[in-house]
């Protein structure tokens, strides 16, 4: 799309970022006579080097350099536990920098130009305007495979109630969470500023007695998603480094693999036994982690089949992960996530 490179004339002279001239960030030669000469030495994505933005936005840039969006260390941390020490070294050298790290978000990836995904991109946001937020063109491009489409209902299910009420990503995921708080986290679950349902929905403030009782009875045993996820969400069934991946809708309830206590929504993750085979990594400790992870499904509804009737879980055991439902040739750790719903005392 040529429009991806088109600058809005009206911004020149009004947007302070553009006042210093294009070469101040992009290098190249704006006085050259030919296109080739002009683009010689040009930097396509200046904010890949955080120092570019740090010249003015010092504190945010310093924090951002340690944030998960920039380090993408969460992706590494999520998989290296399946590997031996030697394999981790191989992973870092052959896979992490070339593959995972190529997905890191730069400042411009959210504020200037939507990141291209698999060669497809929409280019500059609003003609090179430096926008504060435009989730549909930024968050959605990287998180559009699962979360964003679930949230908007584009994946086929029901849209998240928060989306229907007009809330977008940044309304819950604060700028402090996006930019980082200066701490180097290994996983998104460690981030202190990540959103939680209870930040807005306080326990004991429910208007209906049934809701209040239900929340009290399930507190600490079932996650909010466990009951309020509206239905099927995207599950990636396999993922190879260079060949293909498949996805299909699904909904599973089981124990959170993190603490094995809370019943929650589980999502099939893409890593399979031979995911890194082409990189020469067998994953010697593959069975150390399950193939299902607790997922904050972004298709929240106030009323779902599980909030309407206790029987859906406690009698029918609907959508609970069972031995029969587990993926074939999966991790041995999968079985530890299976839980049987407790019968009701009537």
């Amino acid at each position, binding site marked *: 799309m040529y429009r991806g490179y088109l600058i809005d004339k009206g911004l020149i002279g009004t947007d302070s970022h553009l006042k210093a001239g294009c070469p101040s960030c*992009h290098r190249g030669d704006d006085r*050259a006579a030919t296109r080739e000469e002009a683009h010689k030495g040009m930097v396509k994505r200046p904010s890949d080097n955080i120092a570019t933005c740090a010249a003015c936005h010092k504190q945010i840039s310093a924090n951002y350099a340690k944030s998960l969006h920039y380090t993408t260390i969460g992706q590494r941390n999520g998989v290296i536990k399946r590997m031996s020490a030697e394999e981790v070294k191989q992973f870092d050298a052959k896979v992490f920098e070339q593959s995972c790290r190529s997905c890191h978000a730069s400042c411009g990836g959210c504020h200037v130009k939507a990141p291209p995904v*698999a*060669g*497809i991109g929409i280019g500059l946001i609003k003609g090179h305007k430096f926008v504060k937020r435009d989730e549909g063109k930024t968050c959605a491009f990287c998180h559009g495979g699962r979360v964003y489409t679930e949230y908007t209902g584009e994946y086929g299910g029901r849209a998240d109630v928060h989306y229907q009420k007009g809330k977008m990503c940044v309304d819950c995921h604060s700028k402090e969470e996006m930019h980082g708080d200066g701490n180097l986290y290994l996983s998104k679950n460690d981030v202190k500023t990540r959103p939680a349902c209870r930040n807005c929905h306080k326990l004991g403030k429910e208007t209906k007695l049934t809701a209040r009782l239900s929340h009290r009875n399930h507190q600490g045993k079932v996650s909010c998603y466990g009951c309020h996820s509206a239905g099927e969400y995207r599950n990636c069934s396999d993922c190879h480094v260079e060949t293909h991946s498949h*996805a299909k809708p699904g909904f599973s309830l089981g124990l959170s693999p993190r603490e094995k206590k809370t019943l929650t929504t589980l999502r099939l993750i893409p890593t399979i036994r031979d995911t890194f085979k082409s990189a020469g990594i067998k994953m010697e400790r593959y069975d150390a982690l399950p193939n299902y992870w607790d997922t904050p499904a972004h298709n929240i509804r106030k009323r779902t089949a599980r909030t309407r009737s206790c029987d859906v879980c406690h009698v029918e055991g609907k959508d609970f992960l069972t031995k029969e439902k587990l993926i074939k040739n999966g991790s041995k750790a999968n079985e530890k996530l299976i839980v049987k719903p407790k019968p009701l005392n009537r």
Partner: protein
Amino acid sequence: MVRRRNAYGCSREWCVMTKKSCVFLWSLFAVLLVFPLSSPFAAASGCVSCHTNPELLKSLYKPPVIAAGAGEG
């Protein structure tokens, strides 16, 4: 020699100087109005002249070759 002064107590020479300054300032203002400070950059920048021209960019653009299966998952 007695210098003539107006009602505000200013000399004739002072008034002439002030008038000249006014004319100069108004001229400067008019020049800046026509050629704003940012315009020298806009006019001189080769980047801007091409990247604000949709017809030119359209003629130069080559769509990327996307591998089969890219974007899935």
